[in-house]
């Protein structure tokens, strides 16, 4: 899926998170969006996934403008997105396995198939040994892996990762970077980072400052 | 069963102990109160709550007048009922609303400082958080509720005049003429002592909840929620404990 933004502007009250941003992310591309804190990286990722509505301008999924979609159509199309959140956003009341099963159960995937796919996703991120543990008892790296597993379990075409290395040591950072590259094979990958890192070689970087793309 | 009772008793004692500790340390710092913090807390708790208080007082008063109005044609006793309602129901309900506002805000602010490690930071530079954060807030809460309650008593008196007009057909002018007969200083003093006690309880209980907070955003939310609930409980308890005593001492 190709993602593009057209004069995308997002405001929260008096603060402007994104200002007239026009850019695109071709199908299968790997992009790092980087820049200082408050530059609009998280906002851009959430707009791309349809989690935040643009104040002005629009986001297009292939050639479909998200502004015109009904709530149901948007939700149906969001099956194409997996997102790794900055805060992990795992549910502490659920086990690791149930957290990963959540997107499948909500989409009414038959239980046997859902279970097989969740186990497969957890195996790929290396968490097969921690299925029954609660997120609060996991290390930072393991939580991130669990978040990746939940993001990919519904087989999305687009994988978004918001600052996936924050609070991780260099070694864990490298292993999560490898994991992201591996699981995003054949998908569109957009990663938001404070700085580009060597561990994550990508075809393109976009630098966001004050909600707009900064050149050079 | 016995163990459950024991655990409950222990829990209650520990809660009381924590509250008593907050109160004691506030009293200790009373002579050396931080003036700037006190002013800030007074604006936050008192001044900013004024519109809310006036709104609530007007709504409660109007509702009570409506309810008593029904008895106008039926029962002479409506007047006595109206009297006790305005002086009991109103202050109690207002205490609950103010408790929610001041208590939740106080607990949330302290909990935020707590989970962010800023309280530890203060101790690190040998400043006692009780002196600059807790004591001024407890005093400010007491003064705020006292002041706000006085305003609402004024509103209550106006509504009482309206109620008198509706229930007894007493013209408002005559009502204020006969004011001395209807309102006794003892009643007023009782109301003021009660509201001061509510204000103190709200501050102590919410401070205790805020200082206990742990665990990020969820912890701050839990602390604010706990402050509201224990504030309600404390107000009901104080109401029951103080009213019979005040009625005996102050009301002829």
């Amino acid at each position, binding site marked *: 899926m190709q993602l593009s933004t057209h004069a995308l502007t997002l405001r929260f009250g008096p603060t402007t998170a994104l200002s007239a941003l026009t850019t695109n992310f071709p199908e299968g591309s790997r992009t790092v969006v980087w820049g200082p804190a408050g530059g609009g990286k998280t906002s851009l990722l959430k707009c791309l996934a349809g989690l935040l509505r643009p104040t002005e301008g629009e986001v297009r999924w292939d050639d479909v403008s998200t502004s015109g979609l009904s709530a149901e159509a948007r939700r149906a199309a969001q099956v194409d997105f997996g997102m790794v959140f900055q805060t992990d956003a795992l549910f502490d009341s659920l086990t690791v396995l149930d957290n990963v099963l959540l997107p499948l159960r909500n989409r009414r995937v038959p239980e046997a198939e859902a279970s097989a796919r969740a186990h497969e996703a957890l195996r790929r991120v290396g968490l097969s040994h921690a299925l029954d543990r609660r997120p609060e008892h996991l290390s930072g790296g393991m939580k991130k892996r669990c978040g990746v597993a939940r993001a990919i379990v519904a087989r999305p075409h687009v994988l978004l990762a918001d600052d996936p290395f924050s609070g991780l040591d260099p070694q864990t950072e490298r292993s999560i970077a490898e994991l992201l590259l591996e699981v995003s094979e054949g998908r569109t990958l957009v990663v938001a980072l404070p700085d580009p890192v060597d561990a994550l070689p990508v075809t393109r970087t976009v630098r966001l400052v004050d909600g707009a793309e900064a050149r050079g | 069963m016995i163990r459950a009772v024991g655990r409950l008793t222990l829990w209650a004692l520990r809660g009381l102990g924590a509250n008593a500790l907050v109160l004691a340390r506030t009293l200790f710092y009373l002579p050396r109160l931080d003036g700037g913090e006190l002013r800030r807390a007074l604006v936050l708790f008192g001044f900013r709550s004024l519109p809310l208080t006036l709104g609530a007082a007007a709504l409660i008063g109007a509702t009570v007048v409506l*309810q008593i109005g029904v008895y106008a044609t039926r029962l002479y006793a409506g007047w006595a009922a109206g009297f006790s309602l305005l002086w009991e129901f109103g202050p109690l309900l207002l205490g609950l609303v103010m408790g929610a506002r001041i208590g939740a805000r106080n607990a949330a602010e302290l909990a935020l400082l707590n989970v962010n490690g800023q309280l530890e930071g203060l101790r690190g530079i040998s400043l006692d958080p009780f002196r600059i954060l807790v004591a001024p807030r407890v005093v400010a809460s007491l003064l705020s509720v006292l002041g706000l309650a006085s305003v609402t008593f004024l509103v209550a008196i106006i509504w009482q005049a309206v109620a008198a007009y509706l229930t007894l057909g007493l013209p408002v002018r005559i009502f204020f003429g006969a004011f001395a007969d209807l309102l006794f200083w003892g009643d007023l003093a009782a109301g003021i002592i009660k509201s001061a006690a509510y204000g103190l309880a709200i501050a102590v209980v919410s401070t205790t909840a805020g200082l206990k907070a742990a665990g990020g*955003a969820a912890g701050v939310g839990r602390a604010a929620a706990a402050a509201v609930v224990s504030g*309600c409980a404390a107000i009901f308890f104080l109401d029951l404990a103080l009213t019979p005593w005040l009625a005996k001492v102050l009301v002829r």
Partner: protein
Amino acid sequence: MTGGPLRVLGAQTMLFARTVRAAARHGVRRREVLRHMAELGTSSALLIAVGLFFFGVVLVTIAWAQARKYFGNIAVLGPPYFQLILREFSPIMAAVLAASRQGASTAAALGAMSVNEQLEALELSAADPLAELVAPRLIASVLVLPLLTVLGVVAATSSAALTITFAFQNNGAAFLDPSLVTTGDVLSALVKTLLCGAFIPIAASLRGLQAQGGAGAVGEAVTVGVVEACMGCLLIDFLVAAAFFILSAQQ
């Protein structure tokens, strides 16, 4: 309380409509509703029962002092006391206490989920946060608040009867006399509790869902959510009382 009460109520009405629509589209899990009902019942029931029991004691203590001054016979206050408790005091006290208890915990829970990005994670997991989180709380609250109000009536009238009988050695049974209660009174109480029952979780959820930023935003959400829930209940109470007053005056 910025922007005036009308705009605030507008936001809550809109959230209510969206929640109902989301619930109709996605369905509501019965287990979640039952879980919230149980939580509401266990957490608020004690507060409301004890609170209104105390309230009854205090009210008749004051009424006793007044009655001695003016006409001597307290028992004559019994039937109107029962009627007032049922029509006015139990509904509003139960609503304000539930707004404190349940409003605070709802705003805290949803606020924490909001700042932890869990609402967005739910959305990307094909779940509707309104159907999943708000609707069960709404249904549970509408079902449970009337029961809590009945509990409040029982607590406040029985405490009054006990106080009069044992503390003042008078005819306490008069305070259990429902002879003045009319269908209109019951209806008024029911309308109040149903409206407040719907308003409380909506008002609290609104501020919880809006929480953005850090832990401070959650504290703010709880404060504003609880206050708005309480004030909304007072407003509903007044409006319903006024409506029934006008209706009864016309008859």
